[in-house]
């Protein structure tokens, strides 16, 4: 089986697994004063320092959460009483927590429309703007630093969902000019159920989970030590992922060229005119539903996704592609292939071969249906 769905979750790296297992064998509450507590606290802080180094902040700016969804919810709930604007291509974890928010449009190439954003943010009273750095479906890199300059001009705070950027782009809270940043452990080969909200030192974050003074009163509840330790190791190893980007770019481009050649003029490469992270390819085969493609590829031993992975496992038409102006023919037939640290070059050829078969079968079925109808 070939796994090409790293944007949904990256396979856990072996060193992370070891760190998680070791942490599970330790006990002690990091809030306790005794030796057990102190040891636990030391491991927790070592992991916090690794995550902090990944995003260029002090360790005290990292608040561990149960995942990026909680990180996004925390920051959005902190601004619940204020105006909020989010991009139209945000992940559901942002959109669902900001249903009343103004939507910042994207251009047909999938990049945030900065001129439109300027107009919307100018008209808005000071509040929060939330924009992702890398789109999970298309891999398109958003101009967050430029948006932050605009937002600050009108007195807004800026939050960035950087889940898909970690390990793929060098990250710096300061250079992005944002006030908060969400991270997820399992997108960088860490354990699932672990994430972080990274905040500017001047941002007084209120917890949404209360009942303890953990995380400097910013997130109550005994910390998930195995998750934290695993996340720390994954954050450190993400440096090697950054070094791997050139290799993944070459493979992704090879994959794209081969699929376009196999599908001919019917195929639509989404976001190929925009800057993209190295590992992601979003490609549509109009006429064949995403659901059919995902199922057929799975039977052929290739795990891919139809865009955002939903908790229910069902495939729905992508709001991201709709926001880019694609109709249901393209949006409903898009496939996301995302590479990761675990892939090998031969995976590309096997994926192309499987996709070619799927495409050929779909074409034959279409032909048979049309002749029967005639």
């Amino acid at each position, binding site marked *: *089986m070939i796994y090409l769905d790293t944007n949904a979750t990256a396979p856990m790296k072996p060193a992370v697994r070891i760190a998680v297992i070791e942490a599970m064998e330790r006990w002690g509450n990091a809030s306790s004063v005794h030796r057990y507590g102190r040891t636990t606290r030391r491991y927790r802080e070592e992991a916090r320092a690794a995550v902090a180094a990944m995003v260029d902040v002090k360790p005290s700016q990292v608040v561990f959460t149960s995942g990026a969804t909680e990180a996004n919810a925390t920051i959005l709930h902190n601004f619940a009483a204020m105006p909020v604007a989010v991009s139209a291509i945000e992940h559901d974890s942002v959109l669902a927590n900001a249903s009343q928010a103004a939507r910042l449009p994207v251009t047909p190439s999938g990049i945030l429309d900065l001129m439109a954003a300027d107009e919307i943010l100018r008209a808005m009273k000071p509040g929060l703007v939330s924009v992702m750095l890398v789109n999970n479906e298309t891999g398109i890199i958003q101009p967050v630093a430029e948006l932050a300059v605009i937002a600050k001009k009108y007195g807004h705070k800026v939050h960035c969902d950087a889940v898909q950027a970690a390990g793929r782009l060098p990250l710096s809270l300061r250079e992005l000019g944002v006030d908060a940043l969400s991270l997820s452990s399992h997108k960088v080969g860490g354990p699932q159920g672990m994430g972080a909200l990274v905040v500017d030192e001047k941002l007084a974050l209120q917890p949404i989970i209360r009942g303890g003074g953990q995380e400097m009163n910013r997130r109550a509840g005994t910390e998930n030590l195995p998750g934290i330790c695993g996340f720390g190791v994954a954050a450190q190893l993400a*440096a090697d992922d950054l070094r791997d980007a050139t290799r993944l770019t070459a493979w992704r481009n090879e994959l794209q060229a081969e699929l376009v050649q196999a599908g001919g003029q019917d195929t639509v490469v989404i976001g190929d005119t925009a800057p993209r992270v190295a590992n992601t390819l979003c490609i549509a085969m109009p006429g064949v539903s995403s659901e059919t493609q995902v199922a057929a590829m799975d039977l052929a031993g290739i795990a891919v996704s139809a865009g955002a992975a939903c908790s229910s496992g069902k495939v729905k038409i992508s709001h991201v592609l709709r926001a880019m102006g694609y109709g249901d023919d393209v949006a409903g037939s898009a496939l996301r292939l995302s590479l990761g640290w675990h892939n*090998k070059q031969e995976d590309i050829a096997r994926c192309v071969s499987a996709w070619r078969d799927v495409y050929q079968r779909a074409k034959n079925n279409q032909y048979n249906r049309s002749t029967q109808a005639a």
Partner: protein
Amino acid sequence: MSNVIGLNEFAGLANSALTCWLCQKPASTRAIFCHHCGTVQPVRDIDHFARLGIERRIDLDVEHLDHQYAALSRTLDPQRFLIRGMGERTNASKQLEALKGAYEALRDPLRRGRYWLSLHHEHDAAQAEMQPMITELRAELSTAAEPVACDRVAQKAGQALEDGIMGLMQALRGQEWEKASSTLVHLDWLESILGDVRTKRSDMTQASR
């Protein structure tokens, strides 16, 4: 489970003869850390571009280079390895040193040009002829009696250096290795003149005190 998604296999590692110094499991030449045990690996012999994880091209994106360097060097911050063993501390410090060396070699266009040429062509400085401009500048410098005259030489040499770097980049992009090679020698001479200007000017200033 491991057979399903290849958890125990690393891209490019299966055939690698390299192993982690600590856990002895396969290691990649590119990796800073062992992905099996997480320890910092010794510095391996890879090119500067691979060390910084950037595309191998002469006209690289300097901003991206800066960001990559900043992110990678943060990961190797010695403070973070204080509580680790001696082996790992040494490796981290050497990795950081190698990273810095690679960054400096790529950040400076002239050094990058020299490095790029060394990757593609055997550069023989002895074969390059000295251009008349160098002789003229040397003569002008030797007769310069005032700091202002030295500054004039420096200005001319500086301008020639700037133009020369542009010419070097063009030659490298066009894969005109011989031309690039002779341009590099010319640039070396210009740099040497600039060094001589600085020394002479400093001597003049000290003598006037």
